[in-house]
């Protein structure tokens, strides 16, 4: 009895020490994560500031741009925007009806919906370089060259599982009472889906689209051999298109310091766009949910 009590008395400080050490480890890990995030943003910002000029975003590469002469990366900014809007549109057109079918026509735990959700998980896990390879094989089969169209299709495939899964999650959250109320008023499944469920899930769907846009904007591996690259603005689906990640990548490989500087500036522009998207997501998810029936 006595010794046990003695032991406990001596053990108590040790337990306390372990407790505070653990707390310290957890705290310092969290601090480390914050430091890394700041370090990344600061590195990009500090390195890019000297090269960040207005001409970067309003001009296309001039003659001798890659030797350090005048010009900008308007081609890549516009190209990226063209690419992701087309890609997201394609992905959305495929994802939306599929998700509606999953949630209104099928029973809750039908083997079909399980299989589809499972395949979406599978697709989510596939690295974008493999999508790039698949896109290239599609191009060969359709006798397409590296072009805006081929890039759009490939990026659409990358975005599809992200978009579908995110929309599926929000639509699944819609309370079934609302659905049942619509059915009881004589609405068909389709009417219920479009007029009731989609309206209710609208903020979530916008968020999902924005997430997919962000993913498409940043993805380089899938457009590497499907979208090509050009110094001019792309005006047709069958022309190659420049993209921001590849603009950074190519300029960085240049031996000229002026061009490398511009890679940093392009990185700042890309980071800014991504930041903008994530801010809009936060804004939307707060603002739009006001109109939801709760």
């Amino acid at each position, binding site marked *: 009895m006595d010794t046990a009590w003695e032991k406990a008395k001596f053990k108590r400080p040790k337990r306390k020490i372990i407790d505070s050490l653990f707390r310290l480890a957890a705290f310092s890990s969290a601090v*480390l994560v914050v430091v890394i995030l700041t370090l990344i943003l600061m590195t990009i910002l500090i390195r890019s500031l000297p090269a960040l000029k207005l001409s970067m975003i309003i001009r296309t590469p001039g003659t001798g741009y890659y030797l350090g002469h005048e010009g900008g990366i308007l081609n890549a900014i516009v190209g990226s925007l063209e690419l992701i809007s087309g890609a997201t549109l394609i992905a959305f057109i495929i994802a939306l009806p599929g998700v509606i079918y999953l949630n209104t026509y099928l029973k809750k735990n039908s083997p*079909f919906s399980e299989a589809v959700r499972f*395949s979406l998980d599978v697709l989510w896990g596939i690295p974008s370089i493999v999508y790039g*390879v698949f896109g290239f094989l599609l191009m060969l089969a359709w006798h397409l060259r590296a072009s805006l169209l081929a890039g759009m299709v490939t990026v659409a495939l990358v975005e599809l599982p992200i978009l579908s899964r995110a929309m599926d999650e929000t639509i699944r959250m819609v309370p079934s009472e609302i659905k049942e109320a619509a059915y009881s008023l004589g609405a068909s499944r389709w009417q219920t889906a479009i007029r009731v469920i989609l309206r209710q899930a609208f903020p979530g769907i916008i968020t999902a689209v924005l997430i997919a846009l962000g993913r498409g904007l*940043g993805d*380089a*591996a899938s457009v590497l051999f499907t979208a090509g690259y050009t110094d001019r603005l792309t005006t047709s689906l069958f022309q190659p298109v420049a993209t921001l990640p590849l603009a950074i990548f190519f300029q960085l490989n240049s031996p000229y310091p002026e061009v490398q500087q511009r890679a940093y500036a392009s990185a700042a522009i890309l980071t800014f766009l991504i930041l903008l998207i994530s801010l809009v997501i936060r804004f939307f998810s707060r603002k739009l949910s006001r109109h939801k029936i709760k």
Partner: protein
Amino acid sequence: MKKEKVRRLISASAMLFPLLLTVAILTSLVLKALPIISLKSLPTLIFSSAWQPQKGHFGLWPFILGTLWVTITAFILAAPVAIFTSIYLAEYAPGKLKKILAPGLDLLAGLPSVIYGLWGILLIVPFISKYLAPLFSSYGSGYSILAAGIVLAVMILPTIINISVEVLNSVPTELKEAALALGATKFEVIYYVAMKKARPGLIAACALGLSRAFGETIAVMMVVGNVPEVPHTLFSPAYPLPALLANNYGEMLSIPGYDSILNFAALLLLLIVLIFSLMSRLYLNRLKRRS
């Protein structure tokens, strides 16, 4: 009623699209890889380290090893930090701090891989070649497995943290309170109760991070050096499978078997990543259903 039928048909086929796409990707890669598999045997392709496409030697072993080294380094660096951070976020952090950290993590998760690669080139690579490698009397450019591992580790941090926090938050408060009431310290509550209950979920989170790391391309190829040799130390350069594809796939050279071996490399990558992400997804889904 006919309209309804058409709509139903269209949306049903849209729903089947992901299933068909999965099958299409797999079969097209298998078909394209078959010529080289039938020409050489599978073991030679995988375990031979001779990579001389001009002479018809297609050993993928250096690339497979490169992928493994980089991924495992990243995982060893990321997993403890991620788990500790998620413990802090789930158990210790005050609400205000969480509100600040959450958008930060979202941003970190959303940053494109080129940005991470650029960060690696600007900061990690010089740091390794100037300060870290000389400590181990190794002198090189800094473009190395370690550089790629560090960059990748940072990239998979938010993936692991986000899932882990969710898993830790799902541990019932009553369990923790019961342990606290018995006189356990906070550490004992977290270690013996929360983490024990959350262990499968934490493992699945790590596995998901691992599969993300496997397939990452651009950021890795920017800092890893891309030398097709079997790596020996953390400071030696490597040439992972995704980088091999990214550097060579677009320009189909007229070397016989070259495009087929690249498709085989893509297939290999796909299969490894699939097995990993499937196992962890299945695991997570089963956990979700149980809770």
